[in-house]
């Protein structure tokens, strides 16, 4: 390790936001407040902006973009410069966001990166917080944006971005599904082997098991399709409910995501349904959340 490297902090420090490309933002916006229970943030730059916690925004429904992206906060200017260099060396596409793009993301600076699969990841500096406390539109018990599931065409190459360049740690694996930690929580990003790019789900933390279960009946009564759960992930410990949102996006509520200790070593779980849900729920609709029995 060089002196320059050792003086830098770990680059990735926080999952900040998710920007979803939508064709019909009004419909998606109604879902965000009436179903998810997020707080709408009135704003001239982005009309469909939502809060889930103390941050200025964690969800943006963007009509003028063609693919979703996630925002990852980088610890500081030097770390971002270093990441930019490493990305270039490793052949990842990355470009500096324009002033307008930074404004739309409510960050001071952003590097817009494409992973090996084709997912867009914004590496951002100083994402905006809000002085006002979070006031949800319904009592869903949301405590904040918690995690995202990303599709990966090449786990190995995407891991290079996440671990070597961004400093995330592999915490556990289920088959090839890989959980990545960037703070004290078991994971903030999970990579799911796939044949395409995209988000498997956008996950919000909720305050209790009661909230997960109340939301189960809430979405069920509104004829919203539950695609996985209620269930419990053996690796992360979290109780989850994953359900269909607008335009093919999947959202989830989770409670009980474990913290990982300093001595944690990545565990390998068998590639079977019970490794994704110890209660026995099975996912029928999303290929990435299923395991094809070995033939």
């Amino acid at each position: 390790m060089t002196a320059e490297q050792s003086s830098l902090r770990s680059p990735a420090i926080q999952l900040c936001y998710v920007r979803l490309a939508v064709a019909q933002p009004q419909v998606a916006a109604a879902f965000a407040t009436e179903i998810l229970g997020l707080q709408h943030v009135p704003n001239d730059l982005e009309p469909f902006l939502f809060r889930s916690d103390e941050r200025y925004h964690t969800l943006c429904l963007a009509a003028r973009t063609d693919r979703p992206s996630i925002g990852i906060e980088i610890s500081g200017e030097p770390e971002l410069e270093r990441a930019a260099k490493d990305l270039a060396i490793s052949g990842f596409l990355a470009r500096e966001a324009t002033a307008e793009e930074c404004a739309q993301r409510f960050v001071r600076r952003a590097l817009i990166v494409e992973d090996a699969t084709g997912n867009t990841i914004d590496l951002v500096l100083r994402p905006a917080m809000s002085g006002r406390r979070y006031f949800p539109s319904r009592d869903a018990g949301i405590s904040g944006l918690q995690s995202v599931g990303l599709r990966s065409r090449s786990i190995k190459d995407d891991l290079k971005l996440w671990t070597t360049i961004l400093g995330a740690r592999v915490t556990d694996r289920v088959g090839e599904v890989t959980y990545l930690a960037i703070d004290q929580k078991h994971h903030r990003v999970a990579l799911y082997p796939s044949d395409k790019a995209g988000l498997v789900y956008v996950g919000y933390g909720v305050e209790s098991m009661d909230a997960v279960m109340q939301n189960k009946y809430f979405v069920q009564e509104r004829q919203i399709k539950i695609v996985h759960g209620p269930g419990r992930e053996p690796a992360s410990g979290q109780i989850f409910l994953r359900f269909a949102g607008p335009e093919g996006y999947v959202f989830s509520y989770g409670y009980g995501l474990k913290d990982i200790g300093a001595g944690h070593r990545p565990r390998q779980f068998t590639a079977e349904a019970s490794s994704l849900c110890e209660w026995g729920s099975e996912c029928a609709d999303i290929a990435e959340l299923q395991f094809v029995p070995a033939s």
Partner: protein
Amino acid sequence: MIELKDLSYVRMGASNLEEAESFATKCLGLQVGEQSGKALYLRSDDRAHTLCYFEGDPADQTVGFEVEDESKLDAAAATLDQLGHPVHAGRPTECVLRKVKAFIGFKDPTGNQIELAVRPERSGKRYFASRDAGITGFSHVGLSTTNPARDEQFWTQVCNARVSDRIGDIALMRVNAIHHTIALAPGRGPGIHHVNHQVESNDDVLRSYYHLSGQRVPIVFGPGRHPTSGARFLYFKGPDGMVFEYSVGVDEIEDEATHRPRQFGFEPSSLCMWGSRSAALLPPKS
């Protein structure tokens, strides 16, 4: 006053004993303690049995409570006799069938068959479940009532039960620290409304939800959570239409002297704070 110490057993007729055994072991997850001719003794904890199925009429259902000793049993018989409840003193052969030292049988005001028993047997062998349902023991029964106010009075005035909470006029009553041991449920006639077993964790309730759904066992209510006792629950149907419940996290009444029963409205959210509904168990939607 008749002092009930604990719930002891349930006895139920089975139209098909083999089916009852299959359900009890493969679905419910109890341990067969003993199978003698026309009766099946099932264990759920360190007691020798807590559920007995016998070949017979499924409407023939009895709930057994434990009382302190034989002198208390004699006093109870006298009390009931005085109140005009015909009392049957258990014969030695009947005591053997129940694995108790002595018992008396009578009917509560609705007509539910109740037994008071002395020295129900425990087993030296630990409980070993037939499937990993996480059962920790037999805990309470739902008893049908044709007149909730009258039956509440019987259980609390003639016996030592205390009301922990009420949903509408339906009383949830305890005989020890556990939130309730007897839950009254409005019905057209006598009968056991449901049989509850406690499980270890929330996980067990949800695991069983998926396990039983996979076994095509009708789930009649839940997974849910009672706002009264705080318990997470799952109700499902067994042989001859009997409803069984798993639950976990039943509150204990910490201060017997100061606890005041809370009144909950007669509405679905009083039975489940998560939002599950059941046509069979819930009051009609208003």
